[in-house]
């Protein structure tokens, strides 16, 4: 508890302010992200949860400005160590990508270039990130660049539990299992022990047993390298297992953010409550419950609080104006009018 308190005084390693992303789609302009703010502190694991289409992945991708195409506009600020990632030149951004902010994705196999061996791709990145490391090894161990790279690669693969590096180097994406692929991706992402790792549904595609191991792996490695993780998932269960804090997203906004315990013990936002209800638990009396209705159309979203059409505690105010963030406790913010007076009182 105290520890947490201490950390919160610390500077955030990633500070996202009023991030807005709009896509021009067939039917007009879809506001995928309508003002997302959150902070990521060193060494913490922040979960970003929400239904499919709530904008989790878009958030993750737009942080590093990875979504190509003229059909989107981005606004807001993303501070990474007092650099605004939306302001810096492409070159700088490129230097930050991977080296300082790593990223892993949902279906690892599709993320590995099919026409190169895993080795080739790993080596390339090592050469990219770890120039001085290589130089050091060449001096200390008097090995050729090639060997140096190989050694590093071997070591990194061992870290993620891929011991048979020889085979890995030679094999192609199509020849490794999902689990192995994801381990490989992790190894790649953590090569230069970045400050931040963005894990975008990193484990959702894997089956449960593998999932668990990968999660453990992630957690340990990041603890070891002081890497903060932005953990994006639709699975509250996983969030609960691994994360320090949880941010609940709904339709392009963060509706509630708090420490994991609080979210699960005392959820505030009606949507969060709904979600938690929906998680099936053994021995719960009233069978399956769900959040009625479906995620809103992003092209013309409901006015005011985007959740109000589905909200069972809806007030007429809700459809009129957008709720602010209301602090309901330590590190616990909710944007819902129910807690307006909390703020005052």
């Amino acid at each position: 508890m105290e520890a947490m308190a201490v950390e919160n005084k610390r500077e955030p390693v990633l500070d996202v302010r009023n991030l807005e992303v709009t896509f021009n789609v067939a039917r007009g302009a879809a506001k995928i992200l309508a003002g997302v703010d959150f902070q990521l502190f060193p060494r913490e694991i922040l979960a970003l949860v929400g239904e499919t289409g709530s904008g989790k992945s878009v958030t993750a991708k737009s942080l590093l400005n990875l979504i190509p195409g003229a059909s989107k506009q981005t606004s807001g600020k993303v501070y990474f160590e007092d650099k605004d990632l939306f302001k810096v030149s492409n070159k700088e951004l490129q230097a930050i990508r991977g080296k300082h902010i790593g990223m892993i994705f949902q279906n690892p196999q599709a993320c590995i270039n099919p026409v190169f061996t895993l080795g080739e791709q790993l080596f390339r990145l090592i050469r990219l990130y770890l120039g001085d490391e290589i130089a050091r090894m060449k001096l200390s161990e008097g090995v050729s660049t090639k060997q140096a790279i190989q050694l590093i690669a071997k070591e990194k693969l061992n870290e993620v539990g891929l011991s048979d590096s020889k085979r890995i180097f030679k094999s192609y994406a199509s020849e490794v299992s999902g689990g192995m692929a994801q381990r490989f991706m992790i190894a790649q992402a953590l090569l230069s022990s970045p400050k931040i790792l963005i894990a975008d549904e990193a484990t959702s595609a894997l089956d449960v047993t593998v999932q668990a191991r990968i999660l453990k792996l992630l957690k340990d490695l990041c603890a070891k390298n002081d890497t903060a993780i932005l953990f994006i998932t639709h699975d509250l269960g996983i969030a609960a297992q691994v994360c320090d804090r949880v941010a609940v997203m709904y339709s392009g906004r963060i509706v509630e953010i708090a420490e994991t315990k609080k979210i699960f013990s005392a959820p505030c936002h009606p949507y969060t409550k709904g979600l938690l209800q929906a998680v099936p638990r053994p021995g719960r009396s009233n069978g399956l419950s769900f959040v009625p209705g479906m995620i809103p159309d992003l092209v013309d979203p409901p006015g005011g609080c985007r959740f109000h059409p589905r909200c069972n505690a809806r007030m007429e105010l809700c459809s009129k104006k957008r709720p602010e963030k209301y602090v309901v406790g330590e590190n616990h913010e909710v944007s819902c009018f129910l807690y307006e007076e909390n703020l005052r009182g």
Partner: protein
Amino acid sequence: MEKKALKKLAATVVADHHKMRMYQLRQFLKHKSAVLAFFILLITIVAALLGPNIAPYPEQGLGEVNVSERLQAPSAQHYLGTDVYGRDILSRIICGARVSLFGGFFIVIAAALIGVPLGLWAGYSEGIPGAIITRLVELFLSFPSVLIAMAISIVAGAGAFTALLALVIPWWPWYTRLVMGEVLSKKRMLYVEAAQMLGYGKVYIMVRHLLPNILTPVIVMILLDLGPAIIAIGLLSFLGLGTQAPQADWGLMVWEGAQNILSEWWIAIVPGCAMFIVVTAFNIFGDAVKDILEPNRS
């Protein structure tokens, strides 16, 4: 509350469909070149439809010779000059447009009408029929289409219509192959399997569930094939295997003019240009439509 939501959803879906079309239209209008192409095609098609009715010298367009005015360079009374028989080339081109344009349409549409059903069948029901059709397609595709067409129209005897048929014969397999590919990728999809669970008949599933979902690529292919089809017709009639004199046909006209290329060059070049322009127009138009209907495909 549930109901309302669903109603709203349904409403939006319908609305979306309309919006979608409007959006696509807007997208198309953004392609300046495509719009231009479209108008060129429109004009040509009208010209082809009216044919002799708008040709300055209708009977010459249909082949009447006029020895006194032979080999005239483009001028006031003959905007595009006259050919070796003294026939007004503009009139010839207008009358010739029919063969090229409608011939082109005929080929691709006929090819699609044969190829698509076969493709559906072969793709959906594996086993003997599928295998046979696949082999057949492979055999046809293992040889340049126009050559096959040449061969056929030699046997069948030269003539505009035989040439068209001769071109359809090696053309349909391309559609079969396309459709087979599509079907194979779609048939494992939930909506198909669901339909199977529900015990619908093969044909029903093919027609009601698969066909609509593979229509777009077929349409795109048809559009993109029009240009090549017109060229193919030209290739045959240039060798005298297509339309017979004195009927006008662009490919044939180029051939008739080829002898005089060094002196009265316009006789060959003008119809050639007509062909080139129309084909380019079809290609650009097809590309644009493809970009819009299949934005995610190459």
